[in-house]
């Protein structure tokens, strides 16, 4: 296991950042997924959308350059790149639901081997609401879940989610600090393992059934 949580998160972010091709439109969720933007490989231009109504979102502003009118979906001040543009929430979710966003990267409370996701409510405990997550996972062409492999020792990847779902059968890929899985019609497939981990360690920390891909690779991070 990778004990340093910051290191773990950056491993996840770096791996996910390698998925994108030039000029793809990507929506990153709040928290861990936001880190992905720091790791885009050189020579690749990823276009970031935020569901509050911006395409071409840039990094946080330099001190003194803050514009309170330019925020992301987390409410943080951001910048717009020269090719950026703005639109209302109806257009924003038309883009999201209408399969115009190539990738959405989101966190999870639970994710399961059928590609179902729970991420918006722990009944009786924590009810932030779904925000745009339900639309994002239903609408984006590819759904990547970024999550630490376990939380307080408990696996995050399950046979079946126990919490209320964000959506059913929508996840394409799960990236943790230890492994990369693909959700396939035949079930969950382990396709990459971190160099410091092993299939056995992953099996011990995953509560889902999965097959090991024939061409299992070392995670490139």
């Amino acid at each position, binding site marked *: 296991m990778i004990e340093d949580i910051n290191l773990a998160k950056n491993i996840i972010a770096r791996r996910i950042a390698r998925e994108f091709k030039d000029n793809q439109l990507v929506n990153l969720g709040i928290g861990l997924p936001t880190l992905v933007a720091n790791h885009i490989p050189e020579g690749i231009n990823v276009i970031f959308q935020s569901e509050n109504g911006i395409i071409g979102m840039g990094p946080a502003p330099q001190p003194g350059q803050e514009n309170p*009118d330019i925020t992301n*979906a987390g409410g943080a001040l951001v910048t717009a790149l020269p090719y950026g543009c703005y639109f*209302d*929430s*109806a257009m924003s979710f038309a883009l999201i639901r209408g399969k115009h966003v190539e990738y959405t990267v989101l966190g999870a409370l639970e994710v399961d081997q059928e590609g179902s996701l729970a991420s918006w409510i722990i009944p009786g405990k924590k009810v932030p609401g779904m*925000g745009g*997550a339900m639309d994002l996972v*239903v609408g984006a062409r590819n759904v990547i879940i970024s999550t630490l492999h376990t939380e307080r020792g408990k696996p995050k990847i399950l046979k079946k989610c126990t919490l209320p779902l964000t959506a059913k059968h929508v996840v394409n890929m799960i990236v943790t600090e230890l492994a990369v899985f693909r959700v396939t019609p035949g079930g969950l497939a382990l396709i990459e393992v971190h160099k410091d981990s092993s299939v056995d360690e992953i099996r011990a920390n995953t509560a889902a059934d999965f097959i090991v891909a024939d061409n299992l690779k070392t995670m490139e991070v």
Partner: protein
Amino acid sequence: MFHKLIDRKGFSDLLKDDMTIMIGGFLGCGTPETLVDIILEKGVKNLTIICNDTAFADRGLGRLIAAKQVGHVITSHIGTNVETGKQMVEGSIKVDLVPQGTLVERIRCAGAGLGGVLTPTGVGTIVEEGKQKLTVEGVDYLLELPLRAELALIGGSLTDKAGNVVYNATTCNFNPIMAMAADTVVVETRKLVEIGEIQPELVMTPSPLVTHIFVSEKS
């Protein structure tokens, strides 16, 4: 010809207990903050608020919840306002959580005279409870119904005296959609200009939608 400007009193007189009010903004960005101030001052109670999120207990429309003026909120996200969650647990506020894309389409339906819309969002989740489900070409959809308000409060960046509104950057969000779906629409504008000073292609809310213009007291 156009006499749409109102002052604090003019806006305050529109407010009543038990009203349904839409308020624009996304985590406070694009929210008409002076209008929220005036609702706080007037102290009307048991409001139903339709909004993207409940912002913060001390900023944006979330202040109305902290002041216990809201009996019911229809929104997509309450996680940034501790007061909403607390009052929900206490049972003093009713919270309807709606996926953000569904929320904006429901408001758009009301504004556009549509009876409803089929969305794949929420299928297979608790969001589908109590809703009609339709299958079109093998795909399941939820029928989501229009959402209207008596009053819509809009945060504009630039407004001319006719009521044409321009929104800067991400202040746009729910504002132009809400401006179509209420009986009375009040725009709090940061800047008021003469007719003819706005490039017509920039207008997102055409003047006939705007009932009243209020010049913001915030910078």
